[in-house]
């Protein structure tokens, strides 16, 4: 492997990934702030009012990015969990553990902003339609994953149990995404997908910028969290003791 120009496998070891993550974190924070300011500026000051919903629609700039992230982070988490289950990489379990709280936060944010949006527009905070219910199940899956992992003391066994739960839960993601297509729901169909958008262009740009900000935020936070998890799990190794001694001095 040493003849490769860049050896990816090197960063599969926590010892090598720890300093790399540390160097990347400030950049992702900066990008998150940049995209966040641009997205909110476009969303709240440039984008026009909506013909149907007036100013109230502007919660879309938080609601849709949060919903996208809640689903996407779950897929990434399940990918790492599955990788760990198959190949026993030390890093993959740590990544899955680091992503779960951020995913849970976005799932909660999606449900919460959805309720705040539903009351004035639909006339209700909550209905048990397929979209809302499957998103609530996603939040429960995240909470279940976190609870299961922290209930088991041995990190290797905790990773395995969590990975199986995470992989089983993957089936919920297409259900959330296609629920508005497969069944009658109160929630409207998707406004944006890879092929088309039924939003005015400025509104779409505001939403995409906010989504990018959420991406950058998620990466920054997950990297910060995975660094803490590395130190905790490998606290008996030499590199962690050296690292802590360096940070203390």
């Amino acid at each position: 492997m040493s003849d490769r120009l860049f050896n990816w496998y090197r960063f599969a070891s926590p010892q090598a990934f720890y300093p790399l993550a540390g160097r990347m974190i400030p950049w992702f924070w900066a990008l998150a702030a940049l995209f966040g300011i641009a997205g909110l500026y476009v969303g709240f000051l440039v984008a026009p009012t909506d013909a149907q919903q007036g100013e109230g629609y502007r919660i879309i700039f938080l609601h849709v990015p949060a919903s996208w992230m809640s689903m996407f982070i779950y897929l990434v988490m399940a990918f790492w969990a599955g990788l760990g289950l198959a190949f026993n990489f030390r890093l993959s379990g740590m990544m899955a553990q680091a992503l779960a709280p951020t995913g849970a936060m976005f799932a909660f944010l999606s449900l919460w902003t959805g309720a705040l949006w539903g009351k004035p527009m639909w006339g209700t905070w909550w209905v048990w339609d397929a979209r809302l219910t499957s998103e609530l199940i996603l939040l429960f899956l995240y909470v279940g994953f976190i609870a299961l992992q922290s209930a088991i003391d041995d990190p290797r066994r905790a990773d395995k149990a969590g990975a199986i739960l995470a992989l089983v839960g993957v089936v919920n993601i297409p259900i959330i995404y296609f629920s508005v297509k497969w069944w009658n729901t109160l929630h409207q169909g998707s406004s944006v997908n890879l092929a088309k958008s039924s939003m005015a262009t400025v509104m779409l740009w505001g939403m995409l910028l906010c989504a990018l900000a959420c991406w950058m935020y998620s990466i920054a936070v997950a990297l910060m969290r995975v660094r803490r998890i590395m130190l905790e799990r490998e606290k008996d190794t030499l590199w962690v003791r050296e690292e802590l001694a360096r940070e203390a001095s």
Partner: protein
Amino acid sequence: MKTRHKRLLLILAGLVILGAVAALVLNAFQSNLVFFFSPTQVAAGEAPKGKAFRIGGMVKEGSIRREADGVTLSFVVTDTEQDIAVRYQGILPDLFKEGKGAVAQGKIGDDGVFVASEVLAKHDENYMPPEAAQAVGEAHARALMKKAQETTVSP
């Protein structure tokens, strides 16, 4: 084949089986997963009888009327093929308008009128500024006018 490749295959096979099981289960529960029935489904007898259920569709243009008592509202929900008359007393969401989507929960009474206990608005996935919406509306009206002219000329 290495053990870890076997494990990967096992995991992937497990996911495929799980997906198939989920698809079958969801298919079996199809009728329980819909949030509302369209007027056509109700006419075909697909809606539960003697139980509360939800209907959904467009509020028919020009159908909203307030009855003599001043609090009861009546309107027609349509999917352009079938109509259902609805009677309702209560609060309506701001987006409840003629020509827009609505979902009503209730029962069909003896007189065939759907007596709603709750009415929700269902908006579509289009977001555009009011000027654009007006332009779309005018273009739509022009298209209808043109179609009407063609049909009157042709016979």
